[in-house]
């Protein structure tokens, strides 16, 4: 039994949500059964992903070849520290969202297929984190896309349909670019396995097709991740979805794009040659700056937070732009911190909506007196997002900005500090308007926030505090993860010598 588990370790973070999605779809007419199945599935997914992380920590990179095909021919699944950590943090977020859903998801939304679609999204996300094949990554992107489109249009309001069209068209365009990049890459190298590509590409002579392919990858992932000149689909659609869907999207979707970007530009292409680095630096600077500018004018909490997703993506890309080991580690730390904090802020927005009946800060107010607990729970992720010590965001920003000053890009570090200041402005805006000021609508009663909403907010807040007060383990983990990520030889060796490492002793 342990050997069987060891051999199939990589499959469970995918198989469990897939089975749960099927189960939920089968129980279409029974919302209660769907809720129970979904929660059970999320707990099991988290357990499976923790097992995987434990295995990766103890035995190094875990790989799996499907159908028993030898490495470059079949589809490989690979989990290194970065990938496994992403799966764990995605599963934690999914479980938090699953608990939040108990209080937030309405019967009509369950009837529209919330649970199967949500599980389907998790299948796509975990698949994208674990695959070791570039074409397979495209397939997981499409799985994610179709699930997200279903989730955005859950209520079928006019605003959601409108937002979904923008989301669909721009994301379809991005996946088409991705597919073109894969086609050109295959034409040059004749392989799709990432480990094989990492082996073949350094020996391949540079060509126009290869450069175009690298640029297409950057553009495709840039649209997915919400880089500066390409982010317009994000603030046009995220605020229309129901809040729990927005929270999951905010936490996971853009980060999958970022993750793919890191994979492709560490394993396949070098950031340092071919002039990719200045482009990434330009993207990162613009993303930080325009995201935070966009947020400054908004009054709707969801819109403020949507723009802040973009701004924070800039910080993560900063790590790739500097490309020193220190910066890479900072980026890994930043992604993990950011997924937790950003989703948590959206959950708080949902709680504010539940309490005051509005997302508009101008109409909200008086929450400080009515719900002091919520005020404290908001402060933790808000200050963490802005980078106030000793919360997790401070260490994340510190690592990235420190790396930029030590590297050759001090200007971008200075810019990042300035953007941090503007982030404080946005967060204090929410704080002053929603919590401090008295409610402008005298007659309105502030409703109680259900426990099922407070529990995930508190849990994610506790993670933020834990990282903040004891950053050392995660920093050490991020350092090793960044080293493994940038070490091609280790990745190649792990995939091609699968049988010895995965413990499938013959």
């Amino acid at each position: 039994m342990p050997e069987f588990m060891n051999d199939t370790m990589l499959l469970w973070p995918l198989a469990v949500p897939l089975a749960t999605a099927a189960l939920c779809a089968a129980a279409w007419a029974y919302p209660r059964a769907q809720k129970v199945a979904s929660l059970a599935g999320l707990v099991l997914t988290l357990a499976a992903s923790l097992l995987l992380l434990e295995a990766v920590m103890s035995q190094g990179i875990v790989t799996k070849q499907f159908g028993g095909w030898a490495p470059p021919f079949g589809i490989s699944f690979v989990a290194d520290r970065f990938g496994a950590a992403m799966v764990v943090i995605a599963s934690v977020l999914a479980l938090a969202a699953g608990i939040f859903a108990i209080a937030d998801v309405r019967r009509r939304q369950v009837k529209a297929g919330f649970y199967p679609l949500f599980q389907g999204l998790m299948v796509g996300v975990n698949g994208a984190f674990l695959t070791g094949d570039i074409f397979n990554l495209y397939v997981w992107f499409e799985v994610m896309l179709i699930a997200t489109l279903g989730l955005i249009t859950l209520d079928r309001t006019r605003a959601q349909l409108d937002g979904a069209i923008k989301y669909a068209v721009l994301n379809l365009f991005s996946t088409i670019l991705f597919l073109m990049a894969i086609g050109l890459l295959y034409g040059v190298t004749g392989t799709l396995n990432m480990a094989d590509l990492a082996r073949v590409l350094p020996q391949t002579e540079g060509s126009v097709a290869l450069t175009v392919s690298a640029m297409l990858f950057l553009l495709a992932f840039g649209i997915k991740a919400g880089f500066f000149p390409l982010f317009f689909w994000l603030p046009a659609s995220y605020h229309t979805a129901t809040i729990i869907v927005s929270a999951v999207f905010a936490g996971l979707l853009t980060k999958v794009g970022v993750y793919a970007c890191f994979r492709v530009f560490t394993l396949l292409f070098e950031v340092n040659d071919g002039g990719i680095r200045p482009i990434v630096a330009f993207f990162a600077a613009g993303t930080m700056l325009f995201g935070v500018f966009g947020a400054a004018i908004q009054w709707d909490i969801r819109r403020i937070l949507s723009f802040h997703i973009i701004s924070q993506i800039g910080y993560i890309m900063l790590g790739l732009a500097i490309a020193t080991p220190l910066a890479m580690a900072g980026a890994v730390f930043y992604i993990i911190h950011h997924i937790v904090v950003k989703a948590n802020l959206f959950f708080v927005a949902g709680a504010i909506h539940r309490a005051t009946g509005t997302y508009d800060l101008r109409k909200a107010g008086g929450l400080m007196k009515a719900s002091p607990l919520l005020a404290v729970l908001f402060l933790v992720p808000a200050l963490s997002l802005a980078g106030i010590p000793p919360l997790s965001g401070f260490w994340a920003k510190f690592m990235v900005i420190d790396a930029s000053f030590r590297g050759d890009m001090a200007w971008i570090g200075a810019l990042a500090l300035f953007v941090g200041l503007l982030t404080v402005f946005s967060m204090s805006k929410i704080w002053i308007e929603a919590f401090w000021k008295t409610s402008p609508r005298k007659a309105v009663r502030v409703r109680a926030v259900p426990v099922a909403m407070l529990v995930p907010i508190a849990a994610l807040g506790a993670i933020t505090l834990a990282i903040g007060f004891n950053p050392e383990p995660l920093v050490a983990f991020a350092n090793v993860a960044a080293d493994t990520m940038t070490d091609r030889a280790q990745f190649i060796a792990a995939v091609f010598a699968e049988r010895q490492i995965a413990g499938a002793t013959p």
Partner: protein
Amino acid sequence: MNLVYAFAIAAQMGCGVYLLLSRHGMRILIGIVLLSTATNLLIFVAGGLRFTAPPVIEPGLEVLAAETANALPQALILTAIVIGFALVSFAAALMLKTYRSVGSVLTSDHADAEALGSPFDREAPRNA
């Protein structure tokens, strides 16, 4: 031969991008279809297009004979066609539903997402 295909793909992609930039929902949809089929052709050409024997292992042999077609690009395209079909049909359904609820397929008339929580909403009270 490859040059002919390259021009054909370029023309098709140009048409696709042109249609994608339109305001009309149906044109956008057709633009996406054109782009995704052009991409399929691109994979086909990039995968090495030659007149060769079909990739079938003859009875009695263990491996493929020399000069047979590469089956992998075809498998990739097949996958891409299936996925593309699913997404385009979803997009078409989305467009139809939007037309029915908004009453227009012109994206200039689709302002509901922008209006939701707009900072320029005059209804909302200023700092009270």
